Each structure stands twice: as structure tokens, then as C-alpha cells.
């Protein structure tokens, strides 16, 4: 019984982590059609930001407040990710909107550079982030322990999803963003500055990568190459869900998470990875547009 609960929880938890990583891509890749191979490095930037905030807190802030460094780190990671994304959009991406495959290659170069820069600043070895004390421990349910950290990530990704939903759905800026992704020229004919909207959208997607990086610090390593571990999974989740569909990304992440944990439980971690990827490839053969496809009539 405990195992079943734990495994279901693990599936949701892994799904939520994958969702957090893919959420930013769902915007930059899903809505804007930019293949940003440096997305993983924005995750890295978020993780290092968390590290820096922790260091700053341990040096300049009374010890009793240390545990709140993480509260400060989340928005800061978002800002750093967003800033990097903004700069990247302004200097590179906006010239490549009509060449999606070229943006893939150029951002690959960016990713090489960012990794090296991180190594030069923080050194090659991993750095440690001590997760805040209030995230230690877990809830015990029927013999299974649900760690607070994983619950926290589930909560965080839920909050990110809701904020993103509210932003896109309830604010003027979000409305403009949806309008631009739906019909760029019409939006501009209404007076919407598409350049600003593009930069803002890209910054938000990148900022979410930063938040993902921040969240990952409580679970895993923080080093210059962490982005590379997640990037392919994240892209696959977005296409599995269906490009342009946020809800598709949610389902994509959760199904990959569930399938991954189930397969790993019965086989092993390596075979599970193989099974998940083969399943995704096979599914896309059957439904090329993904789980939630936004069908269009365009020919080419």
C-alpha cells in the first residue's frame, strides 16, 4: 500500500518537476516557436542565483533569517532568468523568428558560452545549496513519506501555472501576448507593439526557467552543466503536449512523469528512460501534433 501511494506521489512529483522545467519552453517554444537550446542554461542561472542568495544571506543577514533566503531566491531567480532571456531576445532571437532551425543552432552557441562563463565565475565543481530548514521532513501517510520539498515543488509549479494563467488571461499584457501569438499582423494593426510583446514573452519564459533552476536546487546538483540534463526532456514534453497548448504541456509532463516512475519501478532507471522516449516517439507517429493540438488550416 505504502509503495503504491509513494509511487503515485513520485509520478506526480516527477511530473511536476518536468512541468516546471517545460513551462518556460511552453511559452518560448510552444507559443513563440523559438527553439532556445540555451533554455537549460537559464535553469542553471536560476540555480546559481539561489546559491548566490544563500551565500549573501549567510554573510550579511542575521542567522535567524537565514532560512528565508529561499523566499528571496525564487523571485530573484525569475528576474535573472528573465533578464538573460530579455537580452538574448533583443540581441539574437528577434533576428531569427523566421528561421526557427537557425535559432536552434545559434542558441546552442549561446549555451556553450553561458556554461563556460558559469564555470569561470563559480568554478568547475558543483556548489551546494542547503535547503531551508522548513522544507526538511515530510508528511507520513499510510506508511509513505511525502517529502515537503516535493510537495513544495508541486505547490510552486501550481502557483506558476496559476500565475501564468492569470497573467495571460486576466491582464492587458497577457492579452496582448496571446493576440500576438495568434495573429501577429492583426495585433500590430491594433496598435500592439509586437517587439515589446515578443521580448516580454521571451523574458517570462526564460524567467520561468530561472524559477525551475531555483526549485531544482533543493533536489539535485548545482553545476554548470545541469541545464543539459533537462533540455531534451523539456522539448519532448512540449511537443508531446502539443505546441501552443499550455494545458497540453501539463498533461505531457504528468504522463511522462507517471510513465517514467512506473517503468522505473518495474525495470530500472536506464530502461525507464528508454521506454519513455520510445513511447513519446511512437505516440508522435500516431498523433504528430501532440496530445492537445491547435489545428490549423495552413498548408506550408
Amino acid at each position, binding site marked *: 500500500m505504502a509503495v503504491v501511494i509513494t509511487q503515485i506521489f513520485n509520478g506526480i512529483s516527477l511530473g511536476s518537476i518536468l512541468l516546471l522545467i517545460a513551462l518556460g519552453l511552453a511559452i518560448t517554444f510552444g507559443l513563440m*516557436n523559438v*527553439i532556445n*537550446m540555451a533554455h537549460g542554461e537559464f535553469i542553471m542561472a536560476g540555480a546559481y542565483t539561489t546559491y548566490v542568495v544563500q551565500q549573501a544571506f549567510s554573510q550579511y543577514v542575521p542567522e535567524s533569517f537565514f532560512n528565508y533566503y529561499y523566499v528571496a531566491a525564487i523571485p530573484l531567480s525569475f528576474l535573472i532568468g528573465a533578464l538573460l532571456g530579455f537580452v538574448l531576445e533583443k540581441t*539574437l532571437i528577434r*533576428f*531569427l523568428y523566421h*528561421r*526557427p*532551425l*537557425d535559432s*536552434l*543552432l*545559434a542558441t*546552442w*552557441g*549561446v*549555451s*556553450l*558560452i553561458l*556554461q*563556460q*562563463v558559469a564555470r*569561470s565565475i563559480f568554478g568547475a565543481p558543483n556548489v551546494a545549496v542547503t535547503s531551508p530548514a522548513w522544507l526538511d521532513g515530510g508528511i507520513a501517510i499510510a506508511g509513505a513519506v511525502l517529502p515537503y520539498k516535493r510537495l513544495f515543488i508541486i505547490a510552486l509549479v501550481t502557483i506558476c501555472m496559476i500565475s501564468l494563467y492569470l497573467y495571460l488571461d486576466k491582464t492587458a499584457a497577457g492579452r496582448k501576448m496571446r493576440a500576438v501569438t495568434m495573429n501577429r499582423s492583426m495585433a500590430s494593426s491594433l496598435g500592439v507593439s509586437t517587439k515589446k510583446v515578443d521580448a516580454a514573452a521571451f523574458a517570462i519564459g526564460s524567467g520561468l526557467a530561472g524559477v525551475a533552476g531555483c526549485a531544482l536546487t533543493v533536489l539535485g546538483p548545482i553545476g554548470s552543466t545541469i541545464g*543539459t540534463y533537462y533540455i*531534451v526532456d523539456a*522539448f*519532448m514534453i512540449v*511537443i508531446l503536449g502539443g505546441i501552443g497548448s499550455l494545458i497540453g504541456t501539463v498533461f505531457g509532463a504528468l504522463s511522462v512523469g507517471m510513465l517514467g516512475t512506473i517503468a522505473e519501478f518495474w525495470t*530500472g532507471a*536506464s*530502461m525507464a*528512460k*528508454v521506454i519513455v*522516449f*520510445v513511447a*513519446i*516517439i511512437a505516440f*508522435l*507517429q500516431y498523433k*504528430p501534433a501532440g496530445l492537445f493540438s491547435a489545428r490549423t488550416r495552413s*498548408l*506550408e
Partner: protein
Amino acid sequence: MDKKKLGYWLFFIALFLGPLYLTEFRLALMGKFLCFAIVALGICLIWGYTGILSLGHGVYFGLGAYCTAMYLKLESAGGELPDFMEWSGVSALPAFWQPFSNPVFALGASLVIPALLAAMLGFLTFKNRIKGVYFSLISQAVVVVFVTLFVAKQDWTGGTNGLTNFTTFLGISLSSPLVQIALYMLTVITLGISFALASRLTNSRAGRVLSAIRDGENRVRFLGFNPTSYKVFVYSLSAALAGLAGTLFVLQVGLISPAMMGIIPSIEMVLWVAVGGRHSLIGAILGAVIVNSAKSFFSETYPDIWSIFLGLLFIIVVMFLPNGLVGMVQSWKDKRKKSKQKGGTANATDSVVS
């Protein structure tokens, strides 16, 4: 036209005579780069001419290399079990390894297996009209599958260590400098033949169908061609070229491991072609040689921060030279021609299909 052909001949002859003016170390490097150039040729065919961007060519390269390496490993083991199998607790040679003790089978497989895999993947995805970004990302997922499998099944594949430490090929010692020179020349000849075949293909009617598919796959359907079969063919062909390159690579470098099939090498392969000029076969060859030389040079000169230079190179080429170095030379020549004969017909800048 003749001038062009002469240029190609000179180029390949100059490469062929490499042993005369390159040191042993540089020659070995050049030999490796020329293997990569064969991969680049294949990528140029599918990407530059047919418009399919594959981020999975590392797998085909690796499969080809593994096929040959399996033979070499068995030959080096001299009838016994390969060393890594012993450590991994395998007591008898797995059945699928056995045919690889035959060099003809192994070399044949190094072409056929990559081509078959590519044909299978291509047939499914192209028939389902999956293209562009989707195809690229799916090909990347294939890389993940294969690398994970090859690492995990270490009792069959040698795991992360891969296959290495070969001594002889067909009874000839691989380490002697003469053999290395011979292998180098073999690589140049293979590259030359591949180039000749590829340019013959691209200059034929079938080649024009390919570039028509790139410019408008659906329009091609309305001329009665079935783009799927053309795409499957050219994709398999480029996979076979990658497999061939893998064979030559293993013979010269003496090593293949899953790391060489991975995401990073697969993307780098595309970047060679991007740097050289995606619409030009000779550009692809030059790109492979230039990028790898630059990589060697940067990493020898600035071992700490060389990847920054490489990253910058990629960004600059993609941003400012969408048709690569060959495209740059071409448009520069076009401009000169235009200023020479003013009022001549305007020339397309994107027609660098040499």
C-alpha cells in the same frame, strides 16, 4: 564549369598528398576531420538540399563505427571473449556478435544498419508528414534512446568505455605509421568518391526533385512525386555515409563510445555544415575541417575558455552568414560581378546551390 572541376581535383589531390607535408600528429587529426567531412556531406544532402534537419546523425555515425569496432574487437581478442565481456560476467559471445567476426559482414553492416534504422524512422515520420522542428526534435529523442541503451547494455557494448584497444585490422597492425598513412589516403579517396556521387546526385533530376521538396514539399506532390520515398532515400543515404565515416573513424582513432553518438556531437555535426555552407557540398566538407581545426586550435591555445570562442563562432555564422563561408565567398563574388557589368540581371542571393 571546367574551372570548377579543376578546383575540386586540385583540392582532393592536395588532401591526398597530405602525408607529404603534414606531421604524423596533424595527419592523424586531418584523417579524423575528413571522416567528419563524410558525415557532413550526408548532412548537407538532407539538410541543405532536402530541408530535413536531423539532430540524430551521431547515432548513425556511432552505429557504423560500432559495427566495425565489433569486428576489430573480436579480431584483437583472437577467438577469446572480448575483455569487457569477461568483466561483465558474460560467459559466451552473444549471438548477434558472432557474424561480426567476419570483416565483410561487419563492414557491410556498418553501412546497412544505419541506413535501415534511418529508413525505418524516416518512413514513419515522413509518411506521417512530420517535418521541420518536430522531426529535428524527434531525431534528438532517438539519440537519447540509443545512447542510454548503449551505456546500459555494457555487457554487450562495452558501456561508457565503448570499444577500444584494437591491435590489428585484417591481420595488419593498426599502430604502424604506414598503415595510418594508408588509412588516411583511403579516407581521402572515400571522401572524394562520396563527394563525386553526392554532386552527381544533386546535379541530376532526382537532385532537383530534392531541392524542390525543400522549397515546397506539397507542391512536389502536385507534380506527381511522392516526397516520402525521396526523403526516406536521401535520409538513409546520409545515414549510410555517416556509418561509413564511423568505420573510417574507428580504424584511424581506434575508439568508439556512446559519448560520440550523443546529443552534443550530433548538434556539432550540423554546425559544421552550417559554418561551411549548408547549400554546398564542398562547403560541408570545408566546414567539417575548419570547425574541427578551430576546435583543436582553440582548445590547444586556450584550454580553459575555448568553448566561448566556439560558441561565438556558431552565433556569428548563423546570424551573419546564413549560407556559411561558401555563401559568403559566393555573394562577395556576385557583388564583384555585378559591379563589373552594371545593369546585368539581378542575382538571387540565396541561390548558392553549387
